[in-house]
């Protein structure tokens, strides 16, 4: 029978060392890991609980931006007024992961490293151009969030590496974001498709910068540059939104499965990108 051990290190270095052992799995909120343990989909020899590392839980403002401890729960994110004001889309993505109960535990790092294409926490982070600080046996490095998932269930992290914190850049004026997803139920469901849109506006209300990221329509979350480009210079006129939707749909390469057909996912991705763009635009102070 497999022997399992549990460790809750207090320093990142100690954690990296423990995680370098074969069969070690990091534990953050645990809302995916415990389901996998129970179903037998994973049988690690060591669980490394990252929550007792200093800085793993909590949010601090730094140079106008935010540093989010990787194991910070969705509930804590949702209660941070400053973060909500600056990055409402990032927070709503994180807050859509599971129920209130799951929100009490689930973290952005877990959501990202579980590497589900449908992860609700990820598209808005990608659209936000967020980065993560990674600790590993060879020290620290910083990488864009979108570089972490490598396919369903796979990440680009090397053995022993784990995410210590996320960094969200400082916000210029007239900037906001939004995340929308579609699920058959109103809650407690996995996204059939999801769209995060991050906008910065000029003073005249035209879009200065736009980033669009889509979930559940490809093996990893997609940053669709053409979709963002379709909005730049516009006030989200109907033609601009149609171009956004078309660009978003053109980037989709989904699978058909029990949660939705490829055709349906693609179509919905366009609808959601359009709707999320309108919400982000209004939040940024734009008037259509």
């Amino acid at each position, binding site marked *: 029978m497999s022997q399992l051990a549990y460790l809750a290190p207090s320093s990142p270095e100690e954690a990296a060392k423990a995680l370098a052992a074969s069969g070690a799995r990091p534990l953050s909120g645990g809302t995916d890991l415990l389901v996998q343990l129970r179903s037998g989909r994973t049988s690690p020899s060591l669980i490394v609980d990252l929550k007792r590392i200093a800085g793993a839980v909590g949010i601090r403002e730094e140079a106008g931006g935010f540093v989010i401890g990787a194991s910070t729960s969705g509930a804590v994110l949702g209660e941070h007024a400053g973060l909500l004001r600056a990055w409402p889309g990032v927070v709503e993505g994180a807050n859509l992961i599971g129920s209130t109960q799951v929100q009490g535990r689930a973290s952005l790092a877990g959501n990202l490293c579980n590497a589900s294409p449908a992860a609700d926490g990820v598209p808005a982070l990608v659209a936000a151009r967020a980065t993560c600080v990674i600790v590993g046996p060879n020290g620290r490095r910083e990488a864009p969030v979108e570089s972490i998932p490598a396919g369903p269930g796979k990440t680009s992290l090397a053995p022993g590496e784990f995410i210590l914190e996320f960094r969200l850049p400082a916000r210029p004026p007239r900037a906001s974001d939004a995340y929308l997803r579609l699920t*058959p*139920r109103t809650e407690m469901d996995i996204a059939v498709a999801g769209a995060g849109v991050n906008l910065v506006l000029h003073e005249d209300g035209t879009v200065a910068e736009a980033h669009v990221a889509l979930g559940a329509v490809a093996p990893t979350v997609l940053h669709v540059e053409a979709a963002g480009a379709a909005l730049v210079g516009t006030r989200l006129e109907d033609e601009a939104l149609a171009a956004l939707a078309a660009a978003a749909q053109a980037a989709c390469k989904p699978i058909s499965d*029990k949660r939705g*057909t490829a055709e349906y996912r693609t*179509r919905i991705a366009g609808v959601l990108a359009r709707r999320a763009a309108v919400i982000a635009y209004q939040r940024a102070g734009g008037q259509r």
Partner: protein
Amino acid sequence: MSETLERPAAKADLQVVGTRPIRPDGADKVTGRAAYGADFNMPGQLVGKVLRSPHAHARIVSIDASKAKALPGAKAVVTAADFPDLASEVLEGGEQASNLRDLSLNVMARGKALYHGHAVAAVAAISSEVADEALSRIKVTYEVLPHVTEVEAAMAPDAPLLHDHLFTEGLEARPDKPSNVARRHRNLRGDPEAAFADADVVVEGRYVTPPVHQGYIEPQACVAAWAEDGRCDVWSSSQGQFMVRTYCAKVLGVEISDIRVTPAEIGGGFGGKTTVYLEPLALALSRASGHPVKMVMTREEVFRATGPTSGSVMNVRFGAKKDGTITAAEVELKFQAGAFPGSPVGAACMTALACYDVPNFLITGYDVVNNTPKVAAYRAPGAPIAAFAVESAIDDLARALSMDPIALREKNAVRDGTKASYGPTYQNIGYVETLAAIRDSEHYKAPLGPNQGRGVAVGFWFNVGGESTAAVNIAEDGSAVVVTGNPDIGGSRASMAMMAAETLGIPVERVRPMVADTASIGYSMLTGGSRTTFATGMAVVQAAEKVIADLKARAAKLWDVPADQVEWRGGEAICLDPKADKKPLTLETLAAQSARTGGPIAAQVSINAQGAGPGFGVHLCDVEVDPETGQVSVVRYTAAQDVGRAIHPSYVEGQVQGGVAQGVGWALNEEYIFDAQGQMENPGFLDYRMPVASDLPMLDAILVEVPNPRHPYGAKGVGEVPIVPPLAAVANALRGATGVRIPALPLSPPKVLAALDGAKAG
């Protein structure tokens, strides 16, 4: 006694019935004290687990458990070889009759595994981890066979056969070849073909529904102990401790009285706990190991191995005159039974046209085995499926006739004196009153918003009576204990206590209701078919009346007056002879003196209750559709039902609301999804998608009371009817919102969007 049975007491005379007291088991259930199936433990117990087939259809060539048995801490392994190979025998006592051999083969596969998840072996070990390891060491050699999942594929002449001995019953002549069609049901009245030829308007449709699960939140769980002298104890969560006792005794080949079953609190059943899965295995493991054995299913096991209800394909045709008179109907129902015969297609055939007075019809039903879990009863078994097809077609007929959907139903409604499509003549039914309640509701007249639609559908369930035992024991202080043999799934302790209190004339707080084990009360059929408040309630009232007769006799003795000079009123014995000048004797007084008047005061009654009185429901549903995504939300819902008389109106409303919620889930999102190998792809609450709180609006329940004269307080069964109309009510509302008829469930967003596209293109 016969007087009260003839005419239910007038409502104005009732003190307790119709009020809303707090349920007697309430405090235990809000504090976590109530003990459900998995909450019981015995000293020295082992953990039992089941090895399940990874194939949808396979011959079991061999099972080698030697390595599992050799594992330290593994105490027993059982397979089909440890159970008697039983002959075919029909067993009554469940919600539906079942075949003993099939029951046994479903508990443990013998020779062939018939569905993915079918039990092939079970182990008992000192811990969950050791049990898992033991399971992994059992080597089963399978010869994989072709499998069949869909009902029409299973009916095809070249389909893989599940059972070589199965020949279709119900045909004019016995077929010469075996088939997956276990039975054909047929019910013909008049001359439907001629009536169709003569009709002004004909509508027809083909309807498809997937298998859906009862979805009780508590997985099956039990503890079993087999003593050295052969006496057995079972503690389990089920809809009937006597059902568990009978089935275990038969499957294991032991005396019924050697098994005592104690009912745990039950965490939902909805029909799904009207049979056994774990209990015989736990007993066999306990016998083999010499230890008590506890078994608890995982949620995945619940989905893979316990009863869903049937998936179906149905064809329905209605013919009518221009004025809306329905003259002809044709209904064809093909139901999946799962691995063994016994789908609820028979009940579906009987209920399909039960709300309509149609002179000419043909109803045909097929009970078809296939390589999915054996279906189990699910709330009004079969009726919601048939009603989805029939009520969708009736909605289309109303549109074709440009008639109001309620007016069309009123025009063709069954009434007292109508001969029901399934045989008997209706009496004391409240169907038209229920239609009127919806027609006159504020909801029916309220305006609809953009992208919204409104649907009406009706439903019927027979309700059943049957065998029940109840005891009423008066304590020395005049309080009462009511003992029954029916597990309390949804508040029946409250209604039992209320009926006893009403009859005895004492406050309900002075009555303590108990659900007893099989050794402590006489036989009672299981809790199901909406029978408990009716049938067991009748036994409670009769036991209380027997107590009253005894109390009157004792009062007469104390007063030295003839027995007919004593009346029981308001909890007191009253002397009718004014000359005797006797002060009334309260129950307290009589109880305190019981030793002097003949000993303890108690009565037990066993009955086979008849005259349950059918129930009718009329539902009204508003949905809103997102035309860009196909997402459907139920925005308003009103359900009216003839309940006879509500004993505890809150719990009656609760039954109605709960049935609606299950029906809405069935309509919108719930389904079994099978992959190409016949394995269920969504065996968890995440992807099975039952409604959550934010999926539903408030659910308005209108209780229509047309009392049942066969019950002392007028009760009719209420639990089943509310799940019958919602499937069609939602579908009809969606038809109203979109202009498109979607005849296949669930009405999931991709399907709705595709239908909207089709409508635009067409």
